[in-house]
C-alpha cells in the first residue's frame, strides 16, 4: 500500500514536469531536450537552502522555482537563434552542462555523493514523512500547475505561443516579439519544473546528480509526446502511464539490474514507435514539424 502511494506521489511530480515541458514543447513548439536541468536546479536550490541555511522548504521551493525560471532565460536562449534539430541539440547540451555542474561542483553539491538528510515539508511544526501525507501536498501543486498552464494556454498570451508554434515568421510580422514569448515560455516551464524538483527532493530526502541525467529529460519529453503535444489531459495520462508501466517490471520481481535497462529500452522503443506511427501521441493534435 505504502508502495502504491509512493508511486502516486512520484506520478504527481511527473505530471508537473510533463505539463511544464508541454508548455514549451507542445504549445510553443520548441523542441527542448534539457528539462531535467530545471528540475535539478529546483531540487538542489531548495535542498541546499534547507541543509545549509535552515530555510523552510515552503520558502526554499519558491527560491528554487525562481532560480529555475531565471536559468530558463539562459537555457532557453538558443531558442531565439536556433530551430528544429539544432535547437534540440543545444537544449540537450544545456541539460548535460547543468548535470555536470551538479556532479562536479563538489564543494557546493557534494558531487556524486549527493545530499542526504534533506528535511521534509512540515505543517504547523509537524514534519510530513510518509507518502500518504505527501499526496495532498503534491497534488495541490499538480492542481496549481494545471490551473496556471490551462489559463496561460487559453489566454491571448497562449494564443501567441500557439501562433509561434504554427508559424513563427507570420507571428513576427503580425507584431509579436516572438523571442520574448519563447523565453517566457521557457521561464514558466522552468518555474514549474523547479517546483517539481523541490517537491521531489524534500519528499525523497536525498538527491544526487543521477536523478537529473539526460535520460530524465528524454523521459519527460517522451511523456509529453506520448500523451500528446499541446494537450493538457494528454500530459496527465502520459505521465501516469509512463510512471506506472516500468513499476510493473519491478512488481513482477525483476531485479533492478534487469528492470532498469528494460525500462530504458521500453522508453527508447516507445520513442521510435511514436515517431514512426503516432507522432501526435495519444491525445494530441500537434506533431513536430
Amino acid at each position, binding site marked *: 500500500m505504502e508502495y502504491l502511494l509512493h508511486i502516486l506521489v512520484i506520478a504527481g511530480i511527473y505530471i508537473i514536469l510533463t505539463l511544464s515541458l508541454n508548455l514549451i514543447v507542445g504549445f510553443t513548439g520548441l523542441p527542448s531536450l534539457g528539462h531535467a536541468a530545471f528540475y535539478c536546479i529546483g531540487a538542489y536550490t531548495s535542498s541546499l537552502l534547507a541543509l545549509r541555511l535552515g530555510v523552510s522548504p515552503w520558502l526554499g521551493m519558491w527560491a528554487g522555482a525562481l532560480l529555475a525560471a531565471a536559468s530558463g532565460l539562459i537555457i532557453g536562449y538558443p531558442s531565439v537563434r536556433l530551430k528544429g534539430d539544432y535547437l534540440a541539440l543545444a537544449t540537450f547540451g544545456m541539460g548535460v552542462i547543468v548535470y555536470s555542474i551538479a556532479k562536479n561542483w563538489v564543494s557546493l553539491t557534494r558531487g556524486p555523493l549527493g545530499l542526504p538528510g534533506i528535511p521534509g515539508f512540515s505543517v504547523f511544526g509537524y514534519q510530513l514523512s510518509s507518502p500518504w501525507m505527501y499526496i495532498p501536498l503534491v497534488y495541490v501543486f499538480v492542481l496549481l500547475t494545471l490551473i496556471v498552464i490551462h489559463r*496561460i494556454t487559453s489566454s*491571448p498570451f497562449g494564443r501567441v505561443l500557439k501562433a509561434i508554434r504554427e508559424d513563427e515568421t*507570420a507571428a513576427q510580422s503580425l507584431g509579436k516579439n516572438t523571442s520574448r514569448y519563447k523565453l517566457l515560455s521557457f521561464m514558466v516551464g522552468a518555474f514549474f519544473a523547479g517546483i517539481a524538483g523541490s517537491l521531489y527532493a524534500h519528499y525523497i530526502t536525498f538527491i544526487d546528480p543521477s536523478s537529473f541525467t539526460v535520460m530524465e529529460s528524454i523521459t519527460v519529453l517522451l511523456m509529453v509526446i506520448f500523451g500528446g503535444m499541446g494537450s493538457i489531459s494528454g500530459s496527465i495520462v502520459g505521465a501516469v502511464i509512463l510512471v506506472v508501466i516500468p513499476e510493473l517490471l519491478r512488481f513482477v520481481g525483476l531485479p533492478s539490474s534487469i528492470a532498469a535497462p528494460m525500462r530504458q529500452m521500453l522508453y527508447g522503443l516507445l520513442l521510435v514507435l511514436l515517431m514512426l506511427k503516432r507522432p501526435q501521441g495519444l491525445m494530441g493534435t500537434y506533431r513536430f514539424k
Partner: protein
Amino acid sequence: MMEGKALLSVRDLTKTFGGLMAVNCVSFDIEKGTITALIGPNGAGKTTVINIISGLLRATGGKVVFKGRDITNLPPYRISHLGIARTFQNIRVFPQMTVLENMLVATKYRKGETLLYSVIPDRDVKVEDEQNLKKALHYLEFVGLMDKKDEFAGNLSHGQRRLLELARALATDADLLLLDEPTAGVTPRTRKKLLQLFTRLKNSGKTIMIIEHNMKVVRAVSDRVIVLSNGQKIFDGPPDKAFKDSRVIEAYLGTKWRYM
C-alpha cells in the same frame, strides 16, 4: 530631405546574398491612399524588397523611412506596430488554429498578451477581448469569411486562406499593406472579389503595395507601377506607360515571360 509627404520612402536599398546582388540601389516613394504594383520577372528582387521593408531580412545598404521615421532593420514586430502589415506569397496562416484565432492573434493587446494577465483575471483584459473580437469579426465580415470563423485555417481552400491572410493583416490596424502575390492560384471569382476589396481599402484610406504577376490585375487596380529587373528599378510610372516602355518589354522578353 525630400521624404516629406510620402508614407513610405525607400532609398538606395541594397541586398546581397553571398556575392549575388538581389536588390541594387532601389529607391521609390509611396503616397498615402494609393495602390502601387511591384512587378518584374522572376528573381527580380520583388519579394526581397518586401522582406526588407517588413523587417524579415536585413538590408545590406540603404534605408527605409515610414511616416518620417527610419525603420531600416528594425525587428518585424516593431515594424508591424508602426503600421505595416504583409501577406506572403506562400500563404502563412496558422493551420491548427481556427480562423477566428488567426484573426485574434493579429489584433493588438496591451495587457491580455502579457504573462501576468494571462494568469490573473482582469477587467481591462475583458474589455480588450471584446474590442478585439469585434474587430476580428468586422474584418472577417469584410472579406466574407464569417461563416468559416470556427474552422481550422488549415481546412480552408486556397482562396479562402488568401482572404484570411488579408483580413489578418488588416486586423493589425496597418496603414500600409504589403501584399505578395495575393491573387496567385485563386479562382477567377476570388480574384475578382480580392480586386474589389483592394479598391474598397484604398478608398477607405489604406495604402497598398502589391507584387503581382497577373497584368490584368495590375492594370485593374494599380495607380502606379514599379518594375524591377535583376535587382534594379527600371521603370516607375503609371501602368499604361509601363507596358509600352522599351526597357520593361526588353526585361520581360529576356526571360521566359508568360504573363503578358
